């Protein structure tokens, strides 16, 4: 067995779409671009493609690194590569930046052809279903009729689930990781706090901050801070930071005194330096709106009756954002429909973020699942 390796230097590509995309919100994009990366090679009968869907702050840069930025390693590099669970010697793996994103696909920072200025707050609401529809068009362009697997964690897992409902015949396997069939009121509440932090930032300017030459940095920082709290677990925070004081004693100040304060401020500041506020707002709304059972009177088994794929569902013991019980709902609904489904509940201290980490049992489960997917060998 060879050692797991990096896919090496990668180069993003851009695909332009000129056929208008009708959105679930009633909005419409006349034309748009999707930026994506691929790893491995598409086999002759195009049966080995795997789509990796990203979560809130992810991107198309799933694995590898850039020639001019070797430190910019893909967000799921521990999963994708030669000898890794998603083995690029077997699979042709695709990462796509979602519409409305801020990493190159058409989004609020892009130029609106109708006005000649950036969309800003005028970018239409996009949903999980819209993302999946746009990803399907990319699959068309790449000549992929059916994915061997669609894979995602968190919001990415919701896209994987939605794929099986929107295009049942185009997904052979779906790996739905650390996800939920819909957000809880508590989940929406946290998203709303994050949005309000941005919306009430004086630098937000109703979304047209670019025209004012500013960014709502304070809002973004707070949004990221509150988000980060929900990605970690009480145990993980206790272990990592505890009540450690930066000065070794209480100094009675509002400076970052406890290590956890310092950490959250650092994460917030870093995030505000690269992420677009309108993308954050849109993406959290896409999370809130996701609810495939809504049209079925809340009946998830009925909603999932369309699915034809085989499923792997994974949750993490200390994930309180999308706890194991939320995955159980998906598993039970699939079972009701007599679908092929396996479910792993990984014992992890790291909370929601566990899905990004390189845990031996977690990756062992993914390897076991991906290894059993049959694709024709490269010729």
């Amino acid at each position: 067995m060879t050692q797991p390796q990096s896919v090496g230097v990668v180069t993003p590509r851009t695909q332009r779409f000129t056929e208008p995309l009708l959105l679930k919100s009633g909005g419409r994009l006349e034309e748009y671009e999707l930026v994506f990366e691929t790893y491995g090679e598409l086999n002759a009968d195009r049966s080995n493609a795997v789509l990796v869907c990203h979560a809130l702050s992810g991107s198309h840069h799933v694995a590898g690194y850039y020639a001019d930025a070797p430190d910019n390693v893909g967000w799921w590099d521990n999963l994708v590569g030669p000898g890794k669970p998603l083995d690029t010697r077997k699979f042709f793996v695709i990462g796509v930046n979602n519409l409305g994103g801020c990493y190159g696909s058409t989004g609020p920072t892009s130029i609106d052809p109708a006005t000649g200025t950036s969309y800003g707050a005028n970018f239409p609401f996009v949903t999980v279903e819209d993302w999946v529809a746009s990803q399907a068009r990319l699959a068309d362009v790449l000549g992929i009729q059916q994915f061997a697997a669609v894979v995602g964690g968190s919001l990415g897992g919701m896209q994987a689930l939605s794929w099986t409902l929107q295009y049942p015949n185009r997904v052979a396997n779906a790996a739905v990781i650390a996800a939920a069939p819909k957000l809880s009121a508590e989940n929406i509440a946290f998203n709303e706090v994050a949005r309000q932090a941005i919306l009430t930032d004086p630098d937000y300017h109703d979304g047209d901050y670019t025209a004012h030459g500013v960014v709502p940095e304070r809002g973004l920082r707070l949004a990221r801070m509150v988000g980060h709290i929900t990605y970690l677990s009480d145990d993980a925070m206790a272990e990592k930071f505890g009540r450690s004081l930066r000065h070794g004693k209480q100094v009675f100040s509002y400076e970052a005194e406890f290590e956890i304060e310092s950490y959250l401020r650092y994460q917030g500041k870093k995030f505000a330096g690269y992420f677009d506020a309108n993308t954050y707002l849109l993406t959290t709304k896409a999370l809130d709106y996701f609810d495939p059972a809504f049209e079925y009177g809340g009946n998830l088994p009925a909603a999932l009756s369309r699915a034809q794929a085989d499923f792997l569902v994974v949750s993490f013991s200390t994930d309180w954002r999308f706890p194991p019980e939320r995955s159980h709902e998906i598993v039970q609904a699939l079972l009701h429909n007599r679908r092929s489904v396996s479910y792993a509940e990984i014992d992890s201290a790291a909370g929601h973020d566990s899905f990004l980490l390189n845990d031996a049992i977690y990756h062992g489960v993914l390897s076991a699942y991906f290894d059993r997917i049959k694709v024709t060998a490269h010729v």
Partner: protein
Amino acid sequence: MSKLRYDFQAIAEWIGEGETVLDLGCGDGSLLRHLADTRGVLGYGVEADPENVKASIRNGINVLQIDLERGLAGFEDGFFDHVVMSFSLQAIHNTIGILTEMLRVGHEAVVSFPNFAYWRHRQAILNGHMPVSENLPHQWYNTPNVRFFTIADFEHLCEMNGIVIRDAIGFDEGVRVREEPNFLASVGLFRLGREH
């Protein structure tokens, strides 16, 4: 697992083509693999151990990582034709609870377990030691087993709880026992149902 194949064979005889099977404590998924290959069943395994979950996935069967002590609350009434528990009943605290749940979610339950009244086990006790055998491979201080019972005890439990014994087979090291199973059988295999 190959040494337990005799128990798989007998279980397979009770299961029809294309039926739905839940295997509680499915290990590496061998039984469900066997039933899928020989009977074309729609099978689901339940396992708590991560290594077994991985092995089952590799074996190409559906496995759900659930702690059986928490019951089968997520499963619908009568969803399965058969609910199997092979060599796990003795390792579960809530014996009556799990049997009740098996017969709620399944039309029929199949359980196999080591018989503590097997003559070699009795002999071990007479000699002053807890029995250690092919079907009770652990020492008293490291056994995962928490319930120690006999074929006769199990029959009594079924009677007390309105569980109908539709079939029972005793095995002595893989060979079917015809007489005195509580004395001569090291393993009991029961097919259970409810009165209608």
